[in-house]
């Protein structure tokens, strides 16, 4: 069973306590966006085989949304971090690089 530590309340929550929220760091398209950009925002997903960033909600706990960095092949969790950011913080990226050198996700590495 997947276990994620909530970065807000510090509880090591099991999957049944959490609600999955899909891919993280999607940038909402503004009024200047065209159809292609809106299509990409709504439907196209990284769906990577390997390092992935996701949104989760500590639904049966403190109720906060947060982010998790995870591997979709091994189900290993690299770390969790608060939701108030548009990209993964440096210490999370360093933790991933230590275990998955050369990883890449949507232009990040």
């Amino acid at each position: 069973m997947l276990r994620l530590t909530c970065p807000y309340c510090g509880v090591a929550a099991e999957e049944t306590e959490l609600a999955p929220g899909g891919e993280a760091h999607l940038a909402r398209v503004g009024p200047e966006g065209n159809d292609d950009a809106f299509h990409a925002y709504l439907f196209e997903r990284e769906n990577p085989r390997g390092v992935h960033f996701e949104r989760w909600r500590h639904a049966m706990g403190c109720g906060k949304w947060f982010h998790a960095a995870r591997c979709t092949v091994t189900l290993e969790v690299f770390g969790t971090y608060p939701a108030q950011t548009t990209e993964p913080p440096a210490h999370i990226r360093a933790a991933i690089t230590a275990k998955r050198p050369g990883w890449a996700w949507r232009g990040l590495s």
Partner: protein
Amino acid sequence: MKRYSAFAIAREALRDHTGWGRAWGNPEPRRRYDAIIVGAGGHGLATAYYLGRNHGIRNVAILEKGWLGGGNTGRNTTIIRSNYLQDPSAAIYEKARSLYETLSQELNYNIMYSPRGVMMLAQTEHEVRGYRRTAQANALQGVDTEFIGPERVKALCPIIRLEGPRYPVLGALWQPRAGTARHDAVAWGYARACSEMGMHVIQKCEVTGIRREGGRVAGVDTTRGPIDCDKLGIVVAGHSGRLAEMAGFRLPIESVALQALVSEPIKPAMDVVVMANTVHGYLSQSDKGEMVIGGGADGFNNYTQRGSFHHVEETVRALVETFPMLSRLKMLRWWGGIVDMTGDRSPIISKTPLEGCFINCGWGTGGFKAIPGSGWAMAETMAKGEPGPLAAAFSLDRFREGRFIDESVAAGVAH
């Protein structure tokens, strides 16, 4: 290839079954094919088969990184039905169901199609209204379904408990001509027929790259060397996103784990398929006597073919409250498969931004029932370069254009 018949069995019985030979070849890949299909599961093999049978394209290779039918074709709960709400879905699933009816004869391979009937239980007022509507839609589409009351449900499936602790059975959507088939045999039967037409089914051959020349597909790189082709069909379910990346485009798809399990075999207890979508579990009994149980999909991306345990718990709980006699059964096997979920939970059969490259994916949690229809429509799309009437609505650009085929309203998860 030996033709299978009662006479052949009698002849082989007299010579110790030494004359059967291989059911399909194990060829070395050639340098070039007219068409390459990536993925030798049901959908890929059916695509190749109908390319040869309907369109005369027989210089075809089907490449498989693992073994034949070892992905979701061998991991599903073998249910075949076509009681869909939307017209495009009803058309392609009904085409598939009708092809399944005569597939054993056509392939000369017993796929054990059993039209035992499928009922989808209505356990809330909302579901009653939804299934009544579906039955009306099916009548217009030429799909034979009816809405039946609780007494008929109990008569058709005596082991069911109508007054469930949470959700009483208020009725069901009943499709008498739906049923089950032997899933491995579908892959094996198509593989044998493809091999007989001179096609190459190449196992243990993983595609590692897609070569492009001037905006057109030129061939693939594989673990057994490069192979050229005019047309490329990607039919790989859970790994569609990886292949699309190699071909230089993106898909509206996420891959998640879906689970199933079977019990120890028991004496015949039910001769229909029952799907309970509100409590979420579905059940049928195999010819061996095992109760075959389908569960829910996980909510997060996963490539491990291993699902979360709590979904199994939810599924078993749902089935025990609907079928109390199952509560003492031991479970024998439990497995997962990686399914490709689209934004509207309907499949994609389409041209792609790369000329000469076609994709068939997004069957999500319910691809097995569609195999012959999917192969038929994909073969037509590949042969003509344009989608035919069955495939047109399932194009990749429907998300951009907002033409969703929204079955999730009607079917929740199990569809």
